[in-house]
């Protein structure tokens, strides 16, 4: 109960809502890193998945590498890149991309692979060329699965952007890092609650997107 009232007081404090370390600014940074990481991952993973799914070339290799990448501990990747490239936005975005590419890639690949062969035959029978089959049949059919991969990736990216604060960048993780440093439990919990809220909003957004795509 004490924790809860402290948390409410923390959120109610007007100082929390203005300035460079206020909630809106930190939220903005967090959304910025997450969007950047997710968009870059989609730019890499969707075309690659479409290619491997459509042609079947390197499909096994792609899914194996993606599975391997899923086993990588993100904080290890982040800290290693920080040691090599220095503190800043680059290591954070690299780590987020390493995290987000596998689910998007695997789902895109599987989505295209999963298109019924009879549908593909029909499209070819209608005189569609390879790229037309890909863009007008396989991509639309695979879209729900691609969106599901994006949702998985987005939730993980939003969660993991928290560790940006550990390498000296902003975002909602700042509250958790600074709260830990100052032994301020309320501040830490406030940061964690904000991350949870953002993740829930992300999930809802993707649920809406999926309805639109139908």
């Amino acid at each position, binding site marked *: 109960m004490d924790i809860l009232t402290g948390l409410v007081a923390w959120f109610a404090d007007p100082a929390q809502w203005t300035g460079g370390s206020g909630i809106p600014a930190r939220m903005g940074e967090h959304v910025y890193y997450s969007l950047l990481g997710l968009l870059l991952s989609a730019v890499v993973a969707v075309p690659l998945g479409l290619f491997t799914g459509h042609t079947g070339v390197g499909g096994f290799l792609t899914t194996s590498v993606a599975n391997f990448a899923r*086993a*990588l501990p993100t904080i*290890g990747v982040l800290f290693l890149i920080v040691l*090599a490239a220095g503190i800043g936005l680059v290591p954070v975005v690299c780590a987020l991309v390493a995290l987000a590419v596998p689910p998007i890639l695997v789902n895109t690949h599987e989505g295209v692979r999963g298109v019924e062969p009879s549908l593909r035959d029909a499209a070819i029978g209608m005189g569609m060329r390879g790229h037309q089959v890909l863009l007008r049949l396989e991509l639309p059919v695979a879209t729900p699965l691609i969106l599901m991969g994006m949702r998985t990736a987005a939730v993980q990216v939003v969660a993991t952007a*928290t560790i940006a604060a550990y390498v000296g960048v902003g975002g909602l993780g700042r509250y958790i890092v600074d709260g830990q440093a100052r032994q301020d439990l309320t501040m830490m919990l406030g*940061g964690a609650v904000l*991350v*949870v809220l953002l993740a829930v909003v992300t*999930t809802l957004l993707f649920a809406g997107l999926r309805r639109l795509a139908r």
Partner: protein
Amino acid sequence: MIADAWDWVARVVEWGVTNWSHPGDPERGLLPRLTEHMRLAYLSILIGLAVALPVGLACARWKPLYPPVLTGVNVLYAVPSIALFFLMLPYTGFSDWTAIVPLSLYTLVILLPNVVDGLRQVPDHVRQSAVAMGFGPLRRLVRVETPVAVPVIIAGLRVASVATISMVSVASLVGLGGLGQVILSDGFRRQFDAPIVVGIVLTVALAFVTDALLVLAQRLLTPWARR
């Protein structure tokens, strides 16, 4: 260039070998961190499975139950484990539970749809044959429906175990985390790359060994699929 890379690999391997264990102090070294990592990950996976099985059974039997449970589980899925580690701190402190509760929830979220789908995909004629052979509901469940669902459940377990094993490292941020401690304390805080690389390699190796064990378990549990 190649000589440099070789030197670097040799340096990393040397660090790993010299720090594997400290005979004088069983709490130091890589081995105790690895066993801690395995303890946290395997306990979380087992607890997640232990909850997912009965809940999944209930959802497969009483169909109206499934949509609300699935919605609840999807909301849980949106809650990031990193945030949960910190939200657990006031209640469980620095005990193993701070890591195990969020991670087993995560396993549950991944597994539950697989358990339900696995049980539901039992073909009707198989179920009817079991009834015709005089199997009661319980015996049918244990002897027929669960074995048929095993491949789907294990597919879910494989996804959950890889995710859990790589996520245990994140718990190092709240002072737990097995190999994550090696990455964070020995590596990052000292600006030293060898422990980070060793931590990553051991985590990935653990994930692969676990995955291989699950594939083996599937082969042993479904001998009829092997031909």
